[in-house]
């Protein structure tokens, strides 16, 4: 062994101290909850002591080798070890991945040097699964999960899931392996897995990317990428980890992992918020629209305070759990009527304000209809205007508004509520009391109407989506549960019939409507729920599951408790309806043609067998609604023992 190598080995502890203790560490979080659970030791500026795996590496060089042989065969202190140190410092609990050679160095450091804890390597069977798991996880955990993949074929697989995360404003930290140095590409596989500009193919739908050329560069960019991803409007980031940096020795470099400086979300301008308050207080029929607003439970509480201060009904676009469904101001099923009546509408973190106050009818000649009053005053509050890109058009149609306030709605709401209260006169209070009485009445009527609607086709086979949701509700309502799927295809029955009043009880949808999000996002969210002992519930579309069904294996392998109930309509049913519409518009025969290319049948997929083959408890297909309750009870008992379970239910289309 050379003197340098021995010295490096003996000075390992000193080196780590130099790398890690570079200043106070502030673990960033998306949520107040996560913030409050930080390791206090981190806040004082020192990372937890190195694991036993680190100690094990402080060893002498193997005997019986010449210096040249040592150089030829061994690397001491690879660069990927310090990458793991940085991931630990960022408090990243998991890193989802389908294994690949361009990041073999990092993977080895994670599972060996890092002890496969913080982050734990999650074995995924597709990169789209990795990112979608991270997407769902972040919405429950309140912080990002990391993903590592090939910079070429892996990132290509991951791209659609990144687009969903981008549209849904969810942070995901992707590390992409690559071989930058052409002279180090050993064979054709290495060449095929090398790229000049790793993030190029996803750059239009991520917030930031970088390709570090040194370890110090990597460390700084990793911390920066985390900071950018978690600053509203949040979004995914991609950081290239060159194989040379991972696999080469750290040597004598004095590396520093920079302290994370979380960005305080922007508060709306106080004068603008005061003007918004004036408009809302003076309104006869104020209305609140909300989409991707509540990042935390505090966001829900803030919105309740504002809505009650105004006695304004809330139409939740369900991008997040924003407002309790058992609150009398939650009036989802009255949205058309309320939007048509409103004289002032406040939109909070809205993605599609135009689409909320207009209709564009999908007829032979597109017809545009205004839903809102022509004299309605529009106010928007959100961060959507602060970071946009051009190519992908998920920003929706331009909407002229009367007062557009740039600011994070969750942190701005308390100030707005205070202004509303300050401006509400005593005479106005009695008026608000009358409005409250009316809104309580319309809420009760709306709920009764929804309950009545659920009765139709109650005993039908295939099972109605209302029956499915109500049978499920009966089983979960007295537990600590979390709905980790988007109920759009179940006609929003959970929001219309259940009591959803805690932030973790609903996580919104995919964002980009990219099919294949549902199952892996549910598994990721269930992973985050696991440490809280919550029952994660996923009403799973059949077509979505078949994009990457291997996530069921990942759930079984990592013992992620998740109850998945297949809403199995044996079709990409939305597309069936589209095809039907085209045929009718063209006055062509339709007998059965709308099912060509849109149904998933002949043969019907046996989801229970598929899940079973991957080690997941399962039952079905169930077509008789009378069998649901028993199946649910059995499945929940499996989930409560810490394992996933699947029930295949043959259902009505919507």
């Amino acid at each position, binding site marked *: 062994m050379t003197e340098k190598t021995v010295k490096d080995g003996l000075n390992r502890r000193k080196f780590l101290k130099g790398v890690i203790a570079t200043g106070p560490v502030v673990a960033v979080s998306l949520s107040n909850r996560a913030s409050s659970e930080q390791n206090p030791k981190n806040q004082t500026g020192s990372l937890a002591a190195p694991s036993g795996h680190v100690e094990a590496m402080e060893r002498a060089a193997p005997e019986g080798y010449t210096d040249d042989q040592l150089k030829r065969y061994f690397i001491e202190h690879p660069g990927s070890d310090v990458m793991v140190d940085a991931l630990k410092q960022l408090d990243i609990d998991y890193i989802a991945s389908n294994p690949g050679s361009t990041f073999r160095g990092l993977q080895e450091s994670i599972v060996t040097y890092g002890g496969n804890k913080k982050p734990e390597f999650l074995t995924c069977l597709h990169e789209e699964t990795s990112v979608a798991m991270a997407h769902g996880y972040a919405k429950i955990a309140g912080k990002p999960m990391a993903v590592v993949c090939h910079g070429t074929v892996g990132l290509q697989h991951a791209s659609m899931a990144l687009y969903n995360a981008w549209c849904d404003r969810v942070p995901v930290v992707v590390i992409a392996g690559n071989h930058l140095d052409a002279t180090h590409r050993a064979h054709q596989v290495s060449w095929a897995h090398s790229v000049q500009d790793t993030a190029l193919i996803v750059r239009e739908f991520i917030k930031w990317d970088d390709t570090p050329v040194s370890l110090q560069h990597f460390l700084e960019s990793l911390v920066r990428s985390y900071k950018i991803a978690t600053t509203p409007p949040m979004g995914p980031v991609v950081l290239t980890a060159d194989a040379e940096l991972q696999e080469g020795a750290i040597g004598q470099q004095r590396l520093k992992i920079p302290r994370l400086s979380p960005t305080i979300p922007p508060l709306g301008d106080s004068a603008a918020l005061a003007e918004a308050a004036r408009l809302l207080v003076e309104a006869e029929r104020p209305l609140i629209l909300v989409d991707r607003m509540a990042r935390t439970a505090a966001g829900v509480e803030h919105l309740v305070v504002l809505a009650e201060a105004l006695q304004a009904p809330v139409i939740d676009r369900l991008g997040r759990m924003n407002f309790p469904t058992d609150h009398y101001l939650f009036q989802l099923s009255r949205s058309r009527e309320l939007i048509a009546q409103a004289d002032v509408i406040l939109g909070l973190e809205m993605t599609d304000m135009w689409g909320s106050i207009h209709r564009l*009818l999908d007829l032979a000649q597109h017809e545009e209809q205004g839903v809102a009053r022509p004299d309605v005053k529009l106010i928007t509050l959100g961060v959507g205007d602060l970071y946009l890109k051009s190519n992908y058009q998920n920003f929706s149609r331009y909407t002229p508004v009367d007062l557009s306030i740039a600011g994070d709605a969750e942190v701005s709401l308390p100030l707005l509520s205070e202004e509303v209260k300050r401006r509400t006169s005593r005479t106005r209070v009695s008026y608000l009391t009358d409005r409250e009485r009316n809104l309580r009445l319309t809420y009760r009527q709306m709920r009764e109407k929804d309950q009545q609607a659920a*009765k*139709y086709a109650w005993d039908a086979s295939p099972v109605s989506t209302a029956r499915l949701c109500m049978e499920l509700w009966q089983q979960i309502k007295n537990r600590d549960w979390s709905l980790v799927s988007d109920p759009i295809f179940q006609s*929003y029955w959970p929001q219309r019939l259940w009591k959803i009043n805690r932030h973790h009880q609903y996580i919104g949808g995919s964002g980009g409507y990219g099919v294949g999000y549902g199952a892996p996002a549910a598994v990721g969210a269930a992973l985050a729920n696991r440490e809280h002992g919550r029952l994660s519930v996923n009403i799973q579309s059949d077509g979505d599951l078949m994009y990457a069904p291997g996530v069921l294996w990942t759930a079984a392998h990592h013992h992620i408790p998740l109850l998945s109930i297949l809403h199995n309509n044996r079709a990409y049913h939305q597309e*069936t309806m589209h095809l039907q519409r085209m045929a009718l518009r063209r*006055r062509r025969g339709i007998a059965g043609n709308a099912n060509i290319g849109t149904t998933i049948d002949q043969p019907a997929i046996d989801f229970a067998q598929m899940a079973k083959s991957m080690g997941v408890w399962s039952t079905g297909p169930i077509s008789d609604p009378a069998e649901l309750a028993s199946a649910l009870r059995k499945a929940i008992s499996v989930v409560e023992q810490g394992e996933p379970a699947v029930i295949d239910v043959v259902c009505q289309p919507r």
Partner: protein
Amino acid sequence: MSDFLQNLSCYHSQASRVLFCLLIVVWSSCGVANAADADKNDDWMFIKYGCYQCHGYLGQGSLLSGPRIAPSALPYEAFTEIVRRPYGVMPAYAPDVLDQKALENIYRYLKSIKPESSKPETE
């Protein structure tokens, strides 16, 4: 036509279950191109012309795709008018695509659907 859809009609109406199972035998032997015999069946028309897609197999409707259309007290003339010249986003069914006889089948099917008696618990 998928197995699933061919068999659906057996499920969605207790009253028509036996009739439709018999129909399936006819259907299977004739193939899609010779489905004229199947047109006699009211509930099959409801499926064949895709009404179920937006309104559900029992016409129960969905907040997402289409309103409830059964049970319905809508007179036949008004029903015909809505199908031929719908308001909102519903696509129009022209007479050369959906003839009057098939429309009558569908109307009869919707009329045959009775209110469900079960009441879900929501609290």
